[in-house]
């Protein structure tokens, strides 16, 4: 039961991770030419959001896993 749940969690993490990654990259591309202080911060944060989604996908498929985690 726990294994099924873990598989479901991983599947959802990969699927929604890809969705978030694509959305963040598209939003970053759309905002790329905007000016102003807060827009620069937005761009930085959207980039980091994309990075986070990418890391979550890698973690979900067990490519990345730290010490002391249950795989």
């Amino acid at each position, binding site marked *: 039961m726990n294994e099924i749940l873990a598989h479901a969690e991983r599947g959802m*993490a990969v699927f929604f991770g890809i969705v978030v990654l694509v959305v963040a990259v598209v939003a970053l591309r759309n905002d790329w030419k905007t000016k102003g202080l807060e827009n620069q911060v937005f761009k930085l944060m959207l980039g980091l959001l994309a990075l986070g989604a990418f*890391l979550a996908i890698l973690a979900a498929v067990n490519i990345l896993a730290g010490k002391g985690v249950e*795989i």
Partner: protein
Amino acid sequence: MAVASVAHAGIVGGHHEEPDQLYVETRELRVQGFLLFMVSDLVLFSSFIFAYLYLRNTGQGWPPPGAPKLDLALAAINSVILFGSGATMHFALENWKHENFMKFGSWIVTTIVLGALFLSGQIVEYAKLGVGWGTSGIFGTSFFTLTGMHGFHVFCGIIYLTILLLQALHGKYTFKKYTGLTLGTLYWHFVDVIWVVLFSIFYLY
């Protein structure tokens, strides 16, 4: 629906449509002030993060004996939920900029729900770990302090976004004057970005 109609009428009509001189002159200052607040928050998180990294790299190997194993699958889905809420908050602000009040409302409510889901996931993880304050050594102290502090920020963010939504419903913001909504979005992105770091150091490193 009626409240939304009243709010929409207040936003697009009446004397609030054009930003006044004081608003234009002070807008940049308010944004800078908020960014300074975020930098101070970043310093707070950084000090705890570096303390954790120091303890981790100066001890007798990691994880310490007896430390519970973290659930990577749960953390991955929980992280995606939080990152997804960053995307929905971005949509909320974009819809406000494009003068679409109803979609703004839907996206900000989605963001609040996703934030609450993330907190629920964290509570589940805490329960699964089965350790608490004062009983879990260096690992537990670092883990619970940092993730707990972040969780508190998410909780505050949920309240913050709810207040922004209520203010928007009551016509406090117009489609030309919405600095408060921009700052709320910045705060939510900040909370997301902090989680990218915490997720990396606790689950991937």
